[in-house]
């Protein structure tokens, strides 16, 4: 469909750009909002002769991509914002040593933490590690910029960082696709030159000062290219009242806000696609247009600070400016932006009145608001094994009665910090940090701490970052227990394979690395249970709590309800026998609907009985084990 405009998701546009650039190798670790990039490239691998993998973590994925670049193949690496933290140690050294064939690191930030437990800014790595940074501002640019990033990377012999955000990666818009070239070139790693020869010698950031100087010289070349880049553009009057400097998807928010305010005649917009290092001449020309500047970006004032530094350096030429942005609170420095926030800031600065709709309607909406305010708290899916797992862990910790607690980790099961998982998680930080912190809590018995501690981890998270923490706990004799919630895939991000699965990103058979065998080989005692067997799971968890002499592992293995194997299948027909249902009487008090809380259950107020909502029920049958009356009946489906 070359040449004809299509509506593409941002991540698809990035994929298309990489394919048009002739990318040969791609690697990444799943993380919203970045996951579709590697997924799409994997889908295109056969047709275009690519190697694509889901690596064990972001650092390894960057190493895999770097190897390809050093062997002369264009490569791409994709991850979410905090993945860059994981990869950053390698990235620091790679930036120092430089690369050969074009290599692009696509990092997708999540302003507002729509699918994250942080809204970390990965843009700062570009400045910190002295790498060029590109930020596409719409869908077409996402494609075009990705393609150009490979050329830039080769021009400066270094990694180019391309930053997307959720509202671009996961939004869709018009893109005209170009030509995808034939795959060509043999991979070969040239290592016969001297250490000083970046193109042909061994690869290292040493000698450090020498290579650092080379890196900085190349970065200056990038700045030269940025001065004339079509990805930086100005629209508006020659001498506006206010100059808006913006980047990324915020550009569309500015466009919208100016349209709604009908203020395009008063405001100029400098949209920057090359946001680090900033091109000084371009900046000087545009800052010279007026005395007031508003910087619109997400999340913390990265662009704003860099513009201010540049403005200070050229103060003699452009004079003093009045800056609006995050530093002065005109725009919040936390959470995502939207057209309304930008509109509010512009209306304030320009002193323009704005009313989105008539006040009478606002009044009606206010009256209706109380009905609409009840939030839908996120819940484990119907049939989710995590609900059953946390039900049993909750029971075990209650019976143990020593105020024990669970350190959480990153995945669907992070939701167990909320009511859907009975508020069971008491820490929730970074990938792998549940086990690491439990290892630390376990050492505090010597200071009088008498609470038992458990950690949970998903299967993908286990490989990503839990293994070192578990080794630490075993070796340091920390009395903690690790519960691996093994639902056989990277469920949260859409079922990507991981080292425990039998097929890789390309669908080819690969040897699964067994979690149980890893744990045993480390010297940890291991129990395996089906979390749908509530009684056995609670007993196994209680046993872990009773003897905390060493680090132990409980693997709770059951397929995700959305897994390709289970989705759409319903193992049981589940029904409530209203004769037996006790409802809210003493002896039950709505255990299934009020406490267990699966969305597949419903409470009939009139009759005072529970009911199964067959549209939602996934037929796992766990609620039948929860019902104290045997009133929930599951029967195997024919």
């Amino acid at each position, binding site marked *: 469909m070359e040449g004809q405009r299509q509506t593409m998701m941002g991540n698809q546009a990035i994929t298309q750009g990489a394919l048009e650039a002739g990318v040969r190798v791609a690697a990444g670790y799943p993380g919203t909002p970045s996951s579709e990039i590697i997924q799409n490239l994997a889908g295109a691998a056969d047709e275009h002769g690519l190697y694509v993998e889901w690596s064990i973590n972001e650092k390894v994925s960057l190493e895999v991509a770097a190897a390809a670049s050093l062997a002369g193949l264009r490569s791409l690496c994709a991850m979410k914002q905090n993945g860059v933290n994981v990869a950053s140690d390698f990235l620091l050294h790679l930036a120092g040593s430089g690369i050969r064939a074009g290599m692009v690191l696509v990092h997708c930030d999540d302003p507002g933490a729509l699918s994250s437990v942080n809204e970390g800014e990965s843009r700062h790595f570009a400045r910190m590690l002295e790498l060029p940074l590109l930020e596409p501002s719409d869908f077409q640019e996402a494609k075009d910029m990705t393609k150009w990033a490979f050329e830039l990377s080769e021009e400066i012999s270094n990694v180019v960082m391309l930053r997307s955000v959720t509202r671009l990666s996961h939004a869709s818009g018009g893109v005209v696709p170009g030509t995808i070239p034939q795959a060509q070139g043999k991979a070969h790693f040239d290592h016969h030159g001297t250490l000083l020869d970046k193109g042909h010698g061994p690869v290292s950031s040493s000698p450090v000062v020498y290579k650092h100087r080379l890196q900085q010289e190349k970065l200056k070349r990038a700045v030269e290219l940025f001065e004339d880049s079509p990805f930086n553009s100005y629209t508006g009057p020659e001498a506006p009242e206010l100059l808006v400097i913006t980047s990324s998807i915020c550009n569309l928010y500015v466009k919208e806000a100016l349209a709604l305010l009908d203020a395009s005649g008063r405001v100029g917009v400098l949209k920057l696609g090359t946001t680090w290092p900033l091109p000084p001449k371009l900046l000087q020309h545009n800052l010279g247009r007026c005395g007031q500047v508003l910087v619109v970006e997400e999340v913390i004032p990265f662009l704003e600070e860099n513009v201010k530094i540049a403005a200070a350096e050229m103060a003699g030429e452009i004079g003093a400016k009045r800056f609006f942005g995050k530093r002065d609170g005109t725009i919040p420095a936390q959470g995502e932006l939207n057209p309304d926030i930008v509109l509010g800031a512009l209306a304030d600065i320009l002193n323009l009145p704005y009313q989105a709709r008539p006040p009478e309607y606002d009044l009606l*909406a206010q009256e209706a608001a109380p009905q609409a305010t009840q939030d839908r708290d996120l819940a484990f899916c119907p049939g989710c094994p995590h609900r059953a797992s946390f039900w049993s862990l909750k029971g075990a910790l209650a019976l143990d009665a020593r105020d024990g607690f669970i350190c959480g980790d990153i995945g669907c099961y992070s939701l167990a910090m909320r009511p859907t998982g009975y508020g069971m998680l008491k820490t929730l930080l970074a990938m792998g940090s549940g086990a690491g912190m439990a290892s630390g809590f376990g050492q505090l018995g010597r200071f009088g701490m008498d609470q038992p501690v458990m950690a949970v981890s998903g299967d993908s998270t286990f490989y990503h970052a839990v293994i070192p923490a578990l080794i630490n706990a075993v070796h340091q004799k920390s009395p903690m227990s690790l519960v691996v919630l093994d639902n056989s895939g990277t469920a949260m991000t859409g079922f990507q394979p991981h080292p425990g699965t039998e097929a890789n990103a390309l669908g080819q058979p690969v040897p699964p690395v067994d979690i149980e065998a890893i744990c045993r080989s480390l010297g940890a005692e291991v129990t395996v249970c089906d979390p749908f067997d509530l009684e056995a799971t609670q007993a196994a968890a209680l046993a872990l709590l009773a003897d905390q002499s060493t680090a132990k592992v409980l693997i709770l293995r059951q397929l995700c309800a959305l897994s390709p194997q289970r989705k759409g299948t319903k193992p049981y027909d589940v029904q409530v026998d209203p004769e037996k249902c006790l409802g809210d009487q003493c002896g039950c008090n709505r255990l299934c609907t009020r406490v267990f809380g699966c969305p597949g259950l419903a409470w009939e107020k009139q009759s005072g009985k529970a009911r199964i909502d067959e549209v939602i029920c996934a037929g796992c049958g766990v609620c039948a084990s929860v019902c104290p009356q045997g009133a929930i009946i599951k029967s195997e489906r024919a």
Partner: protein
Amino acid sequence: MATAKLIHDPYNLIITGVGGQGNVLASRMLGNVLTSQGLWVTIGETFGASQRGGSVMSHLRVSADGSWSPQIPAGKAHMVLALEPLEALRVLVKYGNPGAKAIVNDRPILPVAAIAGKTDYPSTEELEGTLARLTAQRWSIPATERAMELGASIFANIIMIGALAATGDLPVSREGFEAELLRALGPAKVATNLEAFDLGAAMVRR
């Protein structure tokens, strides 16, 4: 290609529902049908965590010239396509205006807090009354019920698209949709989905 004329530009459509109802697929199919008319479509959506029983919205901006913000500004929805009644209300409170229209699937999905008895889901009468006050035109249709008769609740999406097409607000033709079904789902699934589309259309035309 001649671009279809729009009654508003950009035309702002919000498809809303609850995680797992399939409105992401619905918004993409609709987007593709409109793109094939030469229109620019920008779709903003959230998924990931919101798949897990949360409120899910897709914002569709349809325009004759260029991309728009993937987030519709407050008070600027022209049409709300709601797979769940409470979600229709939630969207109208923020994005509604005196000219807003809504097509609402009448089947509630209780929030977990309501299942747990911690909150009350508004009664049908309350909801209907409020939705009427907040819209210029409104269709309440039993999309899930009809979908179950067709064999799966997921067809409710297609019924809703059929209903939207029948309002005539956007250039979504039966033929255009059929082509998209063929492209997106393959020939085996076209007939039933087209039946769902016709069911939805009939409910609005009636």
